């Protein structure tokens, strides 16, 4: 009986990872600053998802839960709370392979432009715009950050302006 439960647990953990790996990786690409690589942050988030999965009761949606963990881990790495964890060896069980199709250099250039404009924002603004680009509603962003929906809306108006000013400047 316990074995069956364990298999089910592993199965749903696998589903969660498969369904959310790209959104986690997108956040990692923004928050990883040398010497920490996006792959290191990704591994750290997978570990925290695994650890928290035992206590996940499904009160929040999986999406909200994943974003909360991912953002918290990313920010912890920023404020150097995880000195020890940044020395964790890369796991062979998570593989990153360069995609050989579709994603071209032009797209990467555009992303780098977006990334550089996001990187000049302060940490809180950065996390809000990233969640907005993930197409989350202000309500969901509020649940993840702990802000009210109105507060998110007020902040987003200003952050969007900053971001577009920066992008327009870069495109000139």
């Amino acid at each position, binding site marked *: 009986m316990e074995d069956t439960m364990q298999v089910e647990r592993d199965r749903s953990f696998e589903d969660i990872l498969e369904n959310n790996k790209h959104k986690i990786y997108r956040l990692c690409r923004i928050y990883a600053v040398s010497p920490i690589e996006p792959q290191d942050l990704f591994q750290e988030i997978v570990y925290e998802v695994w650890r928290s999965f035992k206590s996940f009761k499904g009160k929040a949606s999986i999406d909200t839960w994943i974003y909360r963990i991912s953002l918290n881990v990313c920010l912890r790495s920023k404020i150097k709370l995880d000195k020890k964890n940044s020395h964790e060896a890369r796991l062979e069980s998570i593989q990153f392979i360069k995609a050989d199709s579709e994603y071209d250099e032009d797209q990467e250039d555009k992303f780098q432009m977006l990334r550089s404009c996001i990187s000049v924002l302060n940490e809180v603004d950065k996390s809000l715009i990233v969640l907005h680009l993930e197409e989350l509603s202000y309500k969901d962003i509020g649940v993840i950050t*702990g802000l009210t929906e109105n507060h998110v809306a007020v902040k987003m108006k200003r952050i969007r302006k900053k971001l577009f000013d920066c992008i327009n400047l870069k495109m000139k």
Partner: protein
Amino acid sequence: MLEQELKEIWQHSSEGEQIKFKMSKLMIDMEARVTRMERNIKNRDRREIIASLIGIPLFGYFAYEIPFLVTKIACVFAVLFFVYVIYKLKNAQKLRSSIDVASSFSEQLEAQRNYLKEQSKLLDNVLYWYVLPPFIMNIVFILGLGDPVQFDWNPMLLEYLPITPKEKLSTIIMLALFYGFIVLLNKSAVKINYKPVIQDIEQLQLQLKSEN
């Protein structure tokens, strides 16, 4: 550029890399890391608590064995002090385990800040709760040691105790240097490891609260 375009660029940004999991191996890696982390924390706590647990019977024995009243009182206070240290360490552990990585960003920041402030306060005040009490007890213990001949007291541990004024003075000086070193070590840990991180967290909290 339109906002929708930005969202598309963002959504496609993870397509440059394929992410694959070797699931059965990943489960083993995750379990191994949880076990390793728990073991490290347990070992560290165990070390700190064992040091205090050794002190309790040791000074209990001194209180029973040594005939000088003032030294006896110092030994009893030493035992009480070790109990207090264990309580302090256990309390700090409870606070640490209450940080939930799946909580909201603002709750997480608050919990981290509280934990770090508590830890930082603990280290910053080490002089008052960890250094001065045992140092004063050591001084009382040493000064309380009288003439063993008068009490017809001649146990094995006598040769390790400072009996003459010169021995007492040099022991007190050595202890003062040792405890001074502990205070400096902890103060520098607060300055280097804790204060900058607490400032970063408070900065983030301000950014979060501000309307701008």
